[in-house]
């Protein structure tokens, strides 16, 4: 098809324009719109019919005079140019430079939409990543190829935690560091700067590709941004054999942009105005991470999801939780007690932990230690609730032991310094310190051998 320009734009609303009489335009194709001043905007065909096509305009439709624009169908999907040069660079959601440097030149161009990994080609992720954070390594371990989101709320230190993980993440007994793909959607200038400075100060900048759409940038661009970022991640992982850690913040703003466009298109809303396909749409993004047979590289993902009003049942965290392999949940209560990182372990979970820990991966006692800590902490929280009603003095001796454990756990195990990189051994030893406050018989989740080797009541008393 020869590339033609059309002047038949007929309608515009909510980030979309409709163009009439454009025979043979392909669904999903890239569009360029030029206005009378010569400025261009990019778009994508989201409905193609004989009479009319519907175009999503990434930069938004403000100030567009429908009478006075040229619409050009580029006869190619939305693509990004890729080369090793992308490392150290900063782009927008379409892969155009944001750092004032020239565009990446390469004959490797990939459509950002991606396609589904064949489940038969995947390998099960099982290599433990040490993040140096006790609540993650010890109780909700991350493995290479996993997607583990941070569920947070406004004002909670999810960015600091994400940055700490980026700084410290490494495979146990291995020196290779991760390449980082950083995708920022709708975040503030200050948050973006925080990450940029973090990467610069910790010296990893040369290993980072940033894709940034700030809070005041066009929201529609947020819809392609994670896809562009993941296309770059796939290139780094599978063409350049790197282990890639993708940090995406904040998926909530992504979903809100999706809702905005869906509403404009007139899609039937499901919950809270979000379209019924929010789940499938999020899955298209999250499921691009993983490990593939006979490929050296891998993609590990850590999306940040801020829970509107701290509500974990809100559709965005809810649907995310159904797709990702667990979640790290931050708690305002812990934050208010001055505990960093305020990871609330009860609702936190790592589904892929079971095969990444234990004798050959971390330490033989790790699985049972995690189970035991969880059981003790669950009981301890019940006791804490009880104490807040009847007063600590009314508690039995056994219950007071639980109460003390809850406090010690929060202050010693959960809390750690932002610069503290705890090895998994240190984390497990600390766990034994805390558990040894209980008599051996109460530690029913641990085996006799483990108790014999690690239990040390005498020291702690």
């Amino acid at each position: 098809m020869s590339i033609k320009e059309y002047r038949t734009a007929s309608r515009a609303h909510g980030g979309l324009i409709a163009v009439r009489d454009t025979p043979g335009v392909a669904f999903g194709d890239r569009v360029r719109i030029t206005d009378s001043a010569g400025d261009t905007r990019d778009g994508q065909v989201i409905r193609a019919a004989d009479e009319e096509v519907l175009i999503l305009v990434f930069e938004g439709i403000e100030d567009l005079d429908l009478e006075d624009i040229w619409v050009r169908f580029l006869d190619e999907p939305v693509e990004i140019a890729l080369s090793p040069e992308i490392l150290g660079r900063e782009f927008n959601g379409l892969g155009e430079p944001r750092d004032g440097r020239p565009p990446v030149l390469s004959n490797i161009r990939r459509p950002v939409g991606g396609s589904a990994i064949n489940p038969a080609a995947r390998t099960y992720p099982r290599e433990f990543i040490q993040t140096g954070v006790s609540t993650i390594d010890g109780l909700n371990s991350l493995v290479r190829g996993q997607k583990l989101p941070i569920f947070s709320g406004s004002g909670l230190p999810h960015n600091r935690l994400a940055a700490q993980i980026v700084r410290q993440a490494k495979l146990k007994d291995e020196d290779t560091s991760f390449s980082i793909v950083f995708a920022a959607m709708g975040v503030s200038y200050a948050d973006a700067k925080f990450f940029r400075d973090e990467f610069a100060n910790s010296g990893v900048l040369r290993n980072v590709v940033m894709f940034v759409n700030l809070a005041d940038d066009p929201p529609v661009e947020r819809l392609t941004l994670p896809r562009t970022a993941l296309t770059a991640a796939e290139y780094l992982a599978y063409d350049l054999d790197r282990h890639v850690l993708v940090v995406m913040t904040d998926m909530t703003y992504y979903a809100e942009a999706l809702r905005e466009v869906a509403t404009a298109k007139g899609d039937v809303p499901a919950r809270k105005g979000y379209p019924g396909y929010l789940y499938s749409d999020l899955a298209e993004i999250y499921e691009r991470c993983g490990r593939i047979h006979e490929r050296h590289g891998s993609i590990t993902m850590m999306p940040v999801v801020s829970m509107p009003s701290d509500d974990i049942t809100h559709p965005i965290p809810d649907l995310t939780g159904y797709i990702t392999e667990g979640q790290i949940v931050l708690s305002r209560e812990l934050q208010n007690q001055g505990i960093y990182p305020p990871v609330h372990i009860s609702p936190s979970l790592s589904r892929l932990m079971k095969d990444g820990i234990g004798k050959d991966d971390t330490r033989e006692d790790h699985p049972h230690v995690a189970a035991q800590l969880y059981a003790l902490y669950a009981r301890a929280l019940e006791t804490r609730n009880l104490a807040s009603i009847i007063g600590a003095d009314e508690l039995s001796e056994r219950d007071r032991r639980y109460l003390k454990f809850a406090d010690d756990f929060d202050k010693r195990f959960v809390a750690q310094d932002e610069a503290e990189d705890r090895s998994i051994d240190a984390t497990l030893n600390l766990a034994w310190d805390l558990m040894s406050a209980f008599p051996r018989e109460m530690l029913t989740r641990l085996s006799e051998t483990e108790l014999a080797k690690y239990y040390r009541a005498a020291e702690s008393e």
Partner: protein
Amino acid sequence: MPDKHRTGTVRDINGPIVTIDLPGVRSGEQVRIGEIGLVGEVISLSGQQAVVQTYEGTDGVRPGEPAMGLGWPLSVELGPGLMGGIFDGVQRPLSKIALQSGDYIARGLDVPALDRSKQWEFEPSHDLEPGQAVGPGTVLGTVQETEVVVHKVLVPPGIQGELEEVAPAGEYDIESTIAHVRDAKGTSHRLSLYHRWPVRRPRPYHQRDDGVSPLITGQRVIDTFFPQLKGGKGAVPGPFGAGKTVVQQQIARWSNADIVIYVGCGERGNELVDVLESFPKLEDPYSGRKLMERTLLVANTSNMPVVAREASVYVGLTMAEYYRDMGYDVVMLADSTSRWAEALREVSGRLGQMPVEEGYPAYLSSRLAAVYERAGRVETHGAGSGSVTLIGAVSPPGGDFSEPVTSHTKDIIETFWALSKELADARHYPSIDWVTSFSGHVHTAAEWWHEEVDRRWEQRRTEALALLARDAELSRIVNLVGPEALSDAQRWQLEGAALIKEGVLQQSALDDVDTFCSPDKQFALLDLALSIYDKGMALIEIGVPVSELADMPQLAKARRCKSMYNSDQVAEIRTFAQEVEQAFEGIRLEYAKQSVD
């Protein structure tokens, strides 16, 4: 095959929904769309125009491209070679697709489900003679499909008449002729090792029967407390992180079914890989063979096209019914039916249909009911009794069980294993909540347990549930006023309930010993916990303080018994129960002596 493929033109592309001009196309017919030949299914007709839902992404398709009617509805291939396989939502073999298109799934591929080149050793049935009357379900012969599955080659539904000939024993590929049948009109039908069947039409059977024996899953909270029957239908609802997938996988691993069909419908890729990688290594506790030999996977992960997700449940069910027709007990797990319902919603939304509850179309409940009704135990046409047990995971948004999919499902199923976020947060797994779960099959299951395991099963089960209910009441009091307000007897009830929770209900899928628990061991553990409780209560009644009993080391051991002794060591559990009894007797004698002094 249709006389000729009819061709038409693409008019409108709206995501997976494509409108085409194609005269004479039928509702439900398979259609190939565009130059690359994406496969889809006609879902509505209006004059010459047909609306098609495509099983693949439509990027790059243009109005004006061709569309072709294939003349048949969505069907699956049924024959030897299914076992151990992994298929996508429209039964394309994913391992072969990986060989053709690499790590990512390409579009427009046309790969048949069954291997055409593989030779199968066919053994004709001895009692068949040419001239004999045969009909649907008549066993023409057998093929050893895997070490554990004998594949019965059946006369397909719809074929009735006189047997003209059966092929002699030997090696055949699935397309070779293995029999000819002449029907009443004199037409001769050529039969091969496989046939096709439309997935949306339930396969016929002779008559429906009641379920009689429990499906043993090796999971205590299921088998002992909320049993399922072979041929039953059940649901596992739970918020994310409550352990639905682990429950489903445990059933797939350890249940005493002949065939397991696992449909990963809109779920995580990595979890399916877990099944794919671990099942070929794990041993079936009944046959001792690898689990994969009796397992078939249908994988339509959450990022694969949504329309194929809708189809995947029917594709799985049809294959389940096919093995049922051979007289097997089949378990089909659908993880998750909520994703299936969402696929319905997505398509209905794109068609602009009027939504009723939370955007779902009005036909949600009838579709759900029709799916679950395909489960059941039946008298097959020619292979005796067979069953399909259907267990669907439900993923209610926000863990709210009153949402449409969960509430409609609850009306249809007989066994409800409700997963609880609170239990999961406390790492009480499986997090099946004993208060909100139910089973409609307890009395039927009891007959089996009383016959095979112990006559006290139903009574012990009731005692345990009563104690757990009492525990819930007392815990509310404790939460208000503290444990000091309770009497010694009440505190012992809390201890007893804790023993049942930890020693019986909790079961770790990760523990090599405890992951599977035989019915005998299940009862031994339940009986151990309850007799400790009973004996202790008797001591408390004669004045022994609860603190003395609660700190007995035997209690800690009772909690660990499940992972100390495997299913072959039930005698050891009984011996330990006697030790505990002696310890209690010792305390009783001491107190009796003190009170005499």
